């Protein structure tokens, strides 16, 4: 099941620079997208989300961009901090078109921010 795909398993970035994480999806029924961050031995922590009616959502250092025609979203973290080192998961759901709210996850991108 490759409905949500994160093609980069890992990313290394210098502290203070921008981290860009990418996510692609294939299911056109998805209409709401979320990013979660996960530290080892913890559960996923919600970061930011975007509805399909928008193309950008910003929250502090985190911005998510959605390109519906390309079925692609990205997460920008700027400036990156050492505490951002974690695994980042992209997730998608059909919140407006279907009952329920199950999340379909990508495989994750491990981010390492070097001091």
């Amino acid at each position, binding site marked *: 099941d490759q409905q949500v795909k994160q093609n980069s398993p890992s990313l290394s970035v210098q502290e203070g620079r921008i981290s860009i994480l990418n996510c692609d999806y294939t299911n056109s029924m998805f209409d709401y997208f979320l990013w979660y961050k996960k530290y080892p031995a*913890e*559960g*996923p922590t*919600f970061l930011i989300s975007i509805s399909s009616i928008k193309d950008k959502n910003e929250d502090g250092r985190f911005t998510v961009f959605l390109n519906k025609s390309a079925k692609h979203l990205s997460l920008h973290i700027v400036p990156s901090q050492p505490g951002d080192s974690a695994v980042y998961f992209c*997730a998608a759901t059909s919140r407006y078109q279907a*009952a*329920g709210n199950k*999340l379909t*996850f990508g495989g*994750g991108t491990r981010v390492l921010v070097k001091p």
Partner: protein
Amino acid sequence: EPEVTQTPSHQVTQMGQEVILRCVPISNHLYFYWYRQILGQKVEFLVSFYNNEISEKSEIFDDQFSVERPDGSNFTLKIRSTKLEDSAMYFCASSESTRGQGDRGTQYFGPGTRLTVL
């Protein structure tokens, strides 16, 4: 800040045994979920639960699995006869709402229970 809690953090069991994983969702949330992550694989949806009944379940969630809200605070996942392939991290999540409700539909996850089946 309210959070989802799960117990135990690690459960070791013998193949064929029954296990119950417990979760306490955020108190004003009405929708509850179980996900699992097998080592090295994606987080995958198991089941969603609302108003004391299953809303949706995946094909993984077969007759060996069941969920229950035994009281006003706990939400449990039972695996009747565990198999080796059930070894995984099991995450409970909850949300205030679901459809078209903006942030109220956001799912918040617990820290997980690591299930090891020997």
